[in-house]
């Protein structure tokens, strides 16, 4: 089944799928040709995307695009569905270790308008609910709850609040008023410890006052009691430690995959597939075991290509560090089309990529990990990690992708750029990617191409 690494359009994938099938491709239950997601689910955006041609990438895409069906199937089998919101990576670790619970992020609905090219009408419906385009595209979550046409109605909703973005907080509050009760838990804004104040290390080379970790740990304990009640089984220390080890299995795989892809001379896998793979870390796309399989396949493919020096993006491409997830997946393709490649990323959940400490009491470890969220600390701290990761990936430029309407984007870009310029002296650019970026192509092209030219001139 080995073939030259390259990117394919959806049309080309039809033939590629037949080829793989004839060669004996074995797929999981959710497998099948990519085309069916367009025909059956209305994921029209796939027609505009270009995908990696490996069987591993096919598995990744099918895994991603069948999540709602798998959630409905789990519900039908009597499992309880937990909507975890905003914390991006913490509560699912607790939920997945309990039998009969399946956690997912309704926040993920923010990509539905992109995938369905707005044919879902979610953004328009959100507007009718009073949440207009001044809010970030995560507003698509609201009508998705209301119409029940996407994910099943969760048995419980658990949302972190406090130092989170205002868009999400406001939308989640609206959701609760629409009749979806929410268990809120407090995430304080992370601050540096004062002199002489008891402090502790967090993942990601961060530190925080012990008093803040204690508060988060107490909140997580409360969340654990809610989950225990739903599962009918206590979430004891041993059980939680097992959950952390399992989550770390995913995180180790992902760390390995990122290292292989981001530090290699050319890119053995495209930026789009890496973005999707990274997203698996936050809630395992509703299936923890399968996530391990998907990532193992991707890693094997990337390593094999690296050994063969086979790249989907060649070595001459400009090495770009990408900040924030894109509302339109196509943007990742466009970067590569215009001469760039991703060599590092901060998609707002770096705390879900770092290993959860296994040498601490489990709740303490989870609390420290949750508090390492790049979005709950200062932008300067986030920028410092970006600088470190830029060095690791030998980044030649930084792209900060603004999320339309997102409250954190108004100021963070300037601060990150300032730090990157001061510490690395590499060019940076800020651009906004709407859920469907087609109308913006000339603007995006001119800005990204100018960045590529600037970098090449500096070489």
């Amino acid at each position: 089944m080995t073939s030259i690494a390259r990117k394919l359009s959806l049309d080309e994938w039809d033939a590629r799928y037949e080829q793989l099938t004839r060669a004996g491709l074995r797929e999981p239950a959710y497998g099948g040709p990519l085309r069916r997601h367009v025909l059956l689910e209305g994921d029209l955006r796939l027609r505009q995307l270009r995908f990696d041609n490996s069987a591993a990438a096919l598995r990744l895409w099918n895994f991603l695009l069948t999540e709602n069906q798998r959630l409905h199937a789990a519900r039908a089998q009597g499992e309880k569905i937990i909507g975890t919101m905003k914390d991006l990576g913490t509560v699912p670790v607790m939920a997945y270790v309990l039998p009969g619970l399946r956690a997912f992020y309704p926040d993920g609905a923010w990509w539905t308008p992109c995938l369905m090219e707005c044919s879902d009408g979610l953004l328009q419906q959100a507007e009718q609910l009073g949440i207009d385009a001044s809010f970030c595209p995560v507003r698509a979550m609201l009508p998705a709850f209301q119409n029940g046409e996407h994910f099943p109605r969760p048995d419980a909703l658990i949302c972190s609040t406090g130092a989170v973005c205002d868009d999400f907080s406001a939308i989640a509050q609206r959701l609760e008023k629409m009749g979806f009760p929410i268990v809120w838990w407090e995430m304080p804004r992370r601050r540096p410890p004062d002199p002489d104040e008891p402090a502790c290390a967090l993942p990601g080379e961060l530190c925080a006052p012990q008093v803040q970790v204690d508060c988060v740990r107490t909140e997580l304990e409360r969340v654990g009691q809610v989950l225990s009640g739903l599962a009918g089984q206590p979430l004891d220390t041993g059980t939680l430690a097992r959950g952390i080890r399992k989550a770390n299995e995913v995180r180790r795989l992902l760390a390995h995959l990122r290292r292989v892809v981001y530090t290699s001379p050319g890119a053995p896998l495209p930026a789009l597939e890496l973005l999707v793979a990274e997203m698996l870390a936050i809630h395992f796309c509703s299936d923890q075991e399968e996530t391990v399989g998907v990532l193992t396949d991707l890693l094997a493919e990337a390593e094999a290509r690296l050994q063969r020096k086979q790249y989907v993006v060649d070595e001459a491409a400009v090495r770009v560090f990408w900040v924030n997830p894109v509302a339109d997946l196509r943007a990742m393709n466009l970067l590569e089309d215009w001469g760039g490649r991703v060599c590092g990323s901060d998609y707002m959940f770096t705390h879900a990529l770092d290993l959860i400490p296994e040498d601490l009491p489990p709740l303490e470890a989870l609390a420290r990990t949750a508090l390492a969220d790049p979005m709950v600390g200062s932008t300067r701290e986030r920028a410092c990690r970006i600088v470190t990761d830029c060095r690791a990936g030998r980044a030649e430029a930084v792209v900060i992708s603004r999320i339309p309407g997102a409250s954190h984007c108004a100021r963070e870009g300037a601060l990150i750029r300032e730090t990157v310029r001061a510490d690395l002296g590499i060019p940076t650019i800020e651009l906004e990617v709407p859920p469907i970026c087609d109308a913006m192509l000339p603007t995006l092209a001119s800005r990204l191409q100018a960045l590529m030219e600037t970098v090449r001139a500096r070489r």
Partner: protein
Amino acid sequence: MEVFYTSPWVPPEWIKAHGLEPRGVWLARDFACEPLPLAAGVCAFANAVVRLAERQAGSAVIFTSHCDQLRRGFDTVAGAAAPRVFLFNLPVTWQTPVAERIFADELRRLGRFLVGLGGHAPAPGDVAELMTEYSQARQCLLDAVAWCPAREYAEAVARFHLDGSVNLPPERGCPQPQRYGQQHGDDILPRAATSVAAAPGDSRAPGPNAIPLALVGGPLPESQMPLLDAIEKGGGRVVLNATEAGERSLWPASLLVQLQDNAFDLLARGYLANCVDVFQRPNTRLYDWLRGRLAARQVRGIVLWHYVGCDLWRAEAQPMREAFGLPVLLLDADETAPNRNTGRLEAFLESLR
């Protein structure tokens, strides 16, 4: 030293007990008078706080963490102005012991910051005494709700936040002038602080047929207070000022009997227990607070005031319509269309006649 604070849920009593001068920003001189920012998505209020922190090199500024814009505004000044800016972590939840603990811890941390600025640790009894003083001032302002004209009331509450004093207009049988707390110096006098009450027969007085409205929403600094005049000019009357530093920020003096040894605990618990704001999760207390007052004052419409980019308030327009069964007019601070708000207000009031 002056210590500016940006949320009414940061206790000025605590600042004062450390020997420093608490100054609520809403009526501070030259605050929020610059042109509104053009950078996409930047909240003009948060931007004004950043400018204040940059400009007032001899003062301290307390930001609060309750909204993204202020949190990140703090990030922009935290480098250069680090020794004199402070980010107060306001808990968003309020039903748990963790929220109480966070608030109390933050008060203690603020105390250490104030001492670092040259203040002193509160002497025994100081906090209780100041709490009593501020509670009486709040109560006096609450008592004036029934008779004080909207603009004068907004200014009086903002002035209380500025310097702890109570300056109500001489009106309708209330012992006047009422003053509590220390008077301000000239250096912090706002530009147009001496608004005179509307006398009977004054053309500015709202007529008996004026439509009772509630003004609900975010901060209303002095530069935006002409909105209150515009409402009256259009035939409305604000009978409930529930903006950030309006009546909503005044909690009743119900804890005084318990004061003495445990003043700090009561201060922390009192503020958290009486905080009524949109950022709280859930924000049911805001709705409960509004519900009784809207009915009692026979409010016929709500003007929901917010800054452009403020998601927290903007998202509440529709829930408020549904919760209270009242028409809601969403108004924002938009200097690019200064007449737009007037036109919309007039149309809103016309539709309520």
